[in-house]
């Protein structure tokens, strides 16, 4: 199951991160998780929110360059070798991990939730399914973050 993620272009300067966050706050859109990739000059803010389309429209209306991308949320055992097991599954498939970050908030005890952006999300899903690695969809994600 894939999860929609919003990416927002930011300039790397004071104040540029707060502008989109304030907009979302005013509209009552909760950020479920986020990560920030940065270079010396610019940054990419990645967000998972409950209502992706609404957030996208809001940000676009306010002049931000926004893209929706699909990421995959995986349950990873919170113990040594948890992440390695997932990467092992992908070994030799030619599927690249573009980036990954962890979800904030409480999840099922003994497990962490990680978000992955794969070079080929559909192929990745297939491989993960074959190896019985659990993916978490949007609804399930929302439920877990709230519960």
């Amino acid at each position, binding site marked *: 199951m894939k999860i929609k993620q919003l990416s927002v272009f930011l300039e790397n300067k004071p104040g540029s991160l707060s502008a989109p966050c304030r907009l979302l706050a005013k509209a009552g859109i909760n950020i479920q998780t986020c990560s920030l990739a940065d270079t010396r000059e610019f940054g*990419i803010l990645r967000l998972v929110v409950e209502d992706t389309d609404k957030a996208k429209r809001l940000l676009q209306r306010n002049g931000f*360059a926004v893209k929706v991308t699909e990421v995959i949320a995986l349950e990873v055992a919170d113990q040594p070798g948890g992440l390695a097991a997932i990467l092992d599954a992908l070994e030799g498939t030619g599927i690249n991990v573009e980036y990954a970050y962890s979800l904030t908030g409480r999840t099922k005890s003994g497990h962490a939730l990680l978000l992955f952006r794969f070079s080929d999300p559909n192929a990745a899903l297939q491989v993960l399914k074959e190896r019985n690695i659990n993916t978490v969809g949007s609804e399930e994600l929302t439920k877990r973050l709230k519960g």
Partner: protein
Amino acid sequence: MNMSKNREIPPLHPASTMDFLPPAQLRDVQFTRLKIMVQRAYDRVSLFRERMNERKLKPADLRSMDDIVKLPFTVKTDLRDTYPFGLCASPMSEIVRFHASSGTTGKPIVVAYTQEDLDDWTRAVLRSLAACGVHNGDIVQIAYGYGLFTGGLGLHYGAEALGASVIPISGGNTDRQIMLMKDFGVTVICCTPSYFLHLIDRAGEMGINMKELPLRIGVFGAEPWTEDMRERIEAGSDIKAYDIYGLSEIVGPGVAMECVHQAGPHIFEDLFFPEIIDPKTLEPLPDGEEGELVLTTLCKRAMPMIRYRTRDITSLEPTRCVCGRTLRRIRRIGRRSDDMLIIRGVNLFPSQIEAALLKVEGTLPHYQIIVDRQRDLDTLEVQVEVTADAFSDTVSAMEQMQKRLVHSIEGITGLRPAVKLVAPRTLQRSEGKAKRVIDKRIM
């Protein structure tokens, strides 16, 4: 309201008949008008009289249109030096309007009009609009600034005289521009090409597809633009983009305008006589050769201009346009002789940067060139606004795009720039005109 685009070409407007005068007759009209104008300028404007006297030239010495090359040139600084009314050939009692340049430093350049001047200008704009297919029944949104700038009011009166329905919205307030464009079923937009690209982007963000609106004609000018930009505009909005040319010193917009064939603006030669000169030797060049455009107003009363050096680099097309107009065409102006930057000894025109940016996938039309000097070495930075289309989610893809932009610019200009990606709509725009160059060097 019918929201589809009407592509019919209207019958010729009566005012357009002047566009088709037989060449010999056009020459007669030009020469008759030139003699009257020069006599008037000689009698009433001391600067013109003194310069002609220096050359031992009297108005009566003009025997044919070819003798125009004997007349002295006028340059922009002449307008500054005689600020505000030194070049006026009419008493204040006959002057009914002023316009002025937006000059950011020092005094503006002032131009004056009698009622007859305004009538001539209105007719030139009417003929401009008619040439690209605008007609009575069109809804024309004028998004050029109204006020001292000639763009807004110039287009306004011409469009009204044509019988079009005018929306005098002026510049700025983009969301309202788009709302009216959609709600009124606007068919013709007049603004700068860079502002229209901004309108396309913004409409997209608002969920409005410009291609589905009745809009079919764009009258774009007031800044140099390229053929690549025309393609991008037309692809993004499904309209026809036409180049209107003009400058306040001569009259404002409507000095020249493209016909439906989009083959370069036709100069309204019965009103504004064009020459091309070599900007270094000041010698006239034959049709077809590139040089600086020089214009002489043949009818202007309040402020005649004799051989005004426009600084625009172009050529006069040696061939007749397929539309049949006898008016010569200028090649679209991509650069001005005073736009040229010399960076590390290399000549650079902003239009080259624009062409380089538009070549790269995920085209980026909004840019600014920043030239500086650090430790005696010129630096070239190009700031580019990231558009939603060009934005991609990974750092590596963005950095690759940055590299492609650097290579493209280096390939075209021979200069290796620093390319900086900036957020949408962060670059300065003034009066809808994109500010393309910031030169911080102290020479």
